[in-house]
């Protein structure tokens, strides 16, 4: 399996959110601060990788008829583990993500990758697929968080970065972030559900624009190459 290709697929050409259009509920709901976004992204990354490895390890003994039920049980098991770990070690994150951590069970990304990739591929390939797809998801979350937080309250890295006493990362969600302009001038509508829908819509539109552009460019190149070949004949 080509790791470089998988990397590119996960992050750009087959990004779970902006291209496959799955797992959008949490994407829109929790991207209000960078703390939430990074936390959610990493949780999904870990769960996705574990599930991919587990599913691919037992792919040959799963009866085809009940495979979805088995996937769901595996996923729910890993989600419960991560949920309990977060409650124990990063309670602030668990509190601010709330019901969306247990809801990773029904996040289409994980069951989608189990169905589309890891039940057909080797353990190693599935591991990298989980890592890269998870990274792609995390990147989208971070972009959305930065955008919404910036415009909504003029901040960068709320909850995660603290600059009051030198630059440091806070893992308990207490950091105030870097205030780039006065919060009173922020368009607080970006922090509301409306902001989630609009930001994701714009992000997908931008992605579609560039993907189409590169597809057109490739087409033109291929056409030019074919033309050149004809002339050579």
């Amino acid at each position, binding site marked *: 399996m080509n790791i470089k290709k998988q990397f590119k697929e996960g992050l750009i050409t087959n990004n779970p959110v902006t291209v496959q259009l799955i797992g*959008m509920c949490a994407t829109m709901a929790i991207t209000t601060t960078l703390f939430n976004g990074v936390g959610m992204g990493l949780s999904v990354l870990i769960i996705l990788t574990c599930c991919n490895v587990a599913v691919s390890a037992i792919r040959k003994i799963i009866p085809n008829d009940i495979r979805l039920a088995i996937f769901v049980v595996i996923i729910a098991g890993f989600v419960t583990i991560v949920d309990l770990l977060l409650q124990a070690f990063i309670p602030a994150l668990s509190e601010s993500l709330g019901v969306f951590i247990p809801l990773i069970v029904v996040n289409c990304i994980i069951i989608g990758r189990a169905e589309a990739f890891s039940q057909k591929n080797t353990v190693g390939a599935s591991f990298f697929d989980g890592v890269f797809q998870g990274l792609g998801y995390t990147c989208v979350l971070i972009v959305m968080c930065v955008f919404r937080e910036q415009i909504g309250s003029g901040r960068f890295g709320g909850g995660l970065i603290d600059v009051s006493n030198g630059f440091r990362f806070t893992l308990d969600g207490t950091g105030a972030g870097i205030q780039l302009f006065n919060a009173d001038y922020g368009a607080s509508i970006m922090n509301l559900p409306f902001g989630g*829908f609009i930001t994701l819509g714009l992000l997908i539109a931008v992605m579609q624009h560039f993907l189409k552009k590169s597809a057109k460019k490739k087409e033109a190149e291929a056409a030019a190459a074919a033309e050149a070949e004809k002339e050579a004949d």
Partner: protein
Amino acid sequence: MTNIISIAIGAILINNFIFSQFLGCCPFLGCSSKVDTATGMGLAVVFVMGLASAICWVVDTYLLIPLGLEFLETLAFILVIAALVQFVEMFLKKSVPSLYSALGIYLPLITTNCAVLGVVLLNVQNHYNFIESVVYGITGGVGFMLAIVLFASVRERIAFADYPECFEGFPICLVSAGLLALAFMGFSGMQIFG
């Protein structure tokens, strides 16, 4: 009684599952290209959410809590929902074929609808009793149906609209869903019974 009415109005309008809690966005965006399919999906969700709330409340109160197994809630609930959807499908196929053909392919999709698992988990989080849980489940489903039917009618109009090429497909839907969410925000200042 006032409590139940406030839960109901809250679930349908003020804290609408889609427009303010983002639960169930995938089917909301996936099954809303036509008003008919949206209505079918909405009905199926109301039905399953009501039933799931009732059954999961019973499972939680009489099985998980007495045994001290609260940490298995997510796992137990998703199994209950998956089994429930299967049973409902078989039951409808056998005894109410007309409803079955109307709901058709939407039933199996509901297992992975996060609104269903979400409502069950929220029932536990909010410490609702049996009646409150069922009311919250059904009215949450009604709120979902209201949202998806409204949105499907909007999308039927969008099909004829003129928008930039790169917005084709999902982005334009998301933008219009955002505008609908903005409209639903108008309810957020509403106070019920003080």
